[in-house]
């Protein structure tokens, strides 16, 4: 094992770099790597959903024998064999943001927020906004991804516990803005009484914002998202658009994951089973200049 930071190498594998969400995680990870002065490969498959692509990336990274791997698995089960392969090569694996399922793969720790709880919290927030009664609609992510499932479960748990809240539609828009827009337009047709639309990411939520604005119903319908991507923040700041989003502090996830990997390898400390990164609900009022400055985002 390397004693010094100079020859410590780390592979940080995310789902999809094209998504600002993982981009931000990379920013945090790079910050940590710079602080530690270590070498880091930040890589991903070409598109989200391309499981084989991510497996190929992991295989390739393993060939380079890094000292540790941070993995954001695209699918909780399908990446287990690669975790096992890393285990057999003696390369420690840390997961971030998304877990791999329990099984034969050994993961040193999981760094991330609690998706289910975050979305339960968002659902509570929405219920409070609509006064405990009304119709809500959900734009789901990619069916079959564990993240989508956790988020949906968290929301449904809360909504089901309020007898006066009805989930009138739940449509998969595959994390995509245009599909989110179309689905929201259709929801508004079939359920003009809807009080809130919950996007399980900001891209879909921004699509819903467009649909709501197009229908001239911005005042009546709450739209919320997740991830706090720059365009979502811009929309909140401009007002009349997005009503809230979840800030998962993904940069902190990236940062913590790199730190944990470094500590584990160089100091040999046992890590906690779950390094929890808190999430928060951002409302327009929270998008202050200070917040943006801290995030390093410029909006005009």
């Amino acid at each position, binding site marked *: 094992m390397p004693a010094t930071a100079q020859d410590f190498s780390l592979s940080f594998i995310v789902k999809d770099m094209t998504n600002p969400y993982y981009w931000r995680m990379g920013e945090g990870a790079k910050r940590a790597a710079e602080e530690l002065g270590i070498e880091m490969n930040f890589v991903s498959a070409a598109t989200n959903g391309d499981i084989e692509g991510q497996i190929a990336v992991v295989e390739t990274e393993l060939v380079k024998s890094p000292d540790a791997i941070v993995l954001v698995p695209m699918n909780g089960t399908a990446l287990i064999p690669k975790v096992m392969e890393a285990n057999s090569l003696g390369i420690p694996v840390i997961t971030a943001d998304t877990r791999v399922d329990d099984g034969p793969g050994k993961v040193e720790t999981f760094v991330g927020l609690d998706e289910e709880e975050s979305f339960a919290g968002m659902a509570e927030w929405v219920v409070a906004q609509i006064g405990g009664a009304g119709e809500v609609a959900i734009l789901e992510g990619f069916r079959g991804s564990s993240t989508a499932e956790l988020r949906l479960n968290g929301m449904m748990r809360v909504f089901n516990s309020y007898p006066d809240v009805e989930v009138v539609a739940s449509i998969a828009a595959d994390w*995509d803005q245009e599909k989110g827009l179309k689905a929201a337009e259709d929801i508004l047709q*079939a359920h003009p009484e809807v009080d809130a639309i919950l996007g399980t990411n900001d891209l879909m939520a*921004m699509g819903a914002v*467009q649909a709501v604005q197009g*229908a001239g119903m911005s005042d009546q319908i709450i739209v919320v998202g997740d991830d706090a991507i720059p365009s979502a923040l811009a929309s909140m700041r401009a007002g009349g658009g997005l009503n809230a989003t979840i800030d998962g502090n993904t940069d902190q996830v990236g940062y913590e994951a790199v730190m944990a990997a470094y500590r584990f390898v160089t100091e040999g400390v046992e890590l906690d089973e779950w390094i929890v990164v808190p999430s928060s609900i951002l409302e327009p009022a929270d998008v202050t200049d200070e917040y943006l400055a801290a995030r390093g985002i410029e909006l005009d």
Partner: protein
Amino acid sequence: MTMFEKIRTYPLTWIVVVALVLAFALTMASPYFLTSGNINNLLKQVSIVAILAAGQSMVIITGGIDLSVGSVLALSAVTIGWLIQADVHPLIATFCGLAMGTLCGFINGFIITRGRIAPFIVTLGMLGIARGMALVITGGVSYQILEPLFLTIGNSKFLGLPIPIYFVIVTYFVIHIVMHYRVFGQHIYAIGGEERVARLQGIKVDREKLKVYTISGFLAALAAVVMVGRLAATPPSVAQGIELQAIAAVIIGGISFTGGRGLVLTALVGALIMAMITNGLNILGISSFWQQVLIGVVIIAAVWLDNLKSAARQ
């Protein structure tokens, strides 16, 4: 030929009947389908695929294929977004976006004709290249576009119809004229029928094909303008896989891959059928698991219905 015979064998007739059957079924199934609000929705939703399908049908009539339209759309969109972000005048930005798409189409055509490489490969390559460039330009970030120009395109109406549908009407009007009333269109049908013969008869096959792919690129950029209007944003990941929808619209319309045949207007109806299926299933609130199954079934059924016309003709 009698009038009836003429109508019966006109390529549009049957596919329009199929569309009407579908519309009728959806109207029966949901009270929301045939509301003016939803028709407006449908018109907006169909617009992007319809514009792409117009270009795609020209390409397919030459016997080619253009897989890159979704990526070219995205690249054009982010070009617009990036320039507006950099405080360029929105009209100039739009112009540059259109130029970008046109350039991509031109490059497709250039490589296909000069390199004698299969259109499938070249446009598949462009699919990766344009998408990658869109991501490189933006660093993966989606710009928000709050210019009134685009907000108008996305959300306003004119004479009671949403603006995007006017883009569609103009596109199909022009392409229809080009394909059926101009020498260029005549050449396209000849090339699609038998490229070797067209060449022997002195048609500048390469030049005409180059034009067709360029037009397809331009139309992808035009669709990007509508897309930017609709999303008020330019996510670089937009319109993934939309090429298959555009191609399906063309084929559902009855234009065949073998080339040389078909009416571009049928692609519009094909696009409408596709849009109705998704819209209808969303409205009916059908689980997205079953949606995919049903979309598949309805596409096949629509084409099968359309095929009955040839059975009737025999």
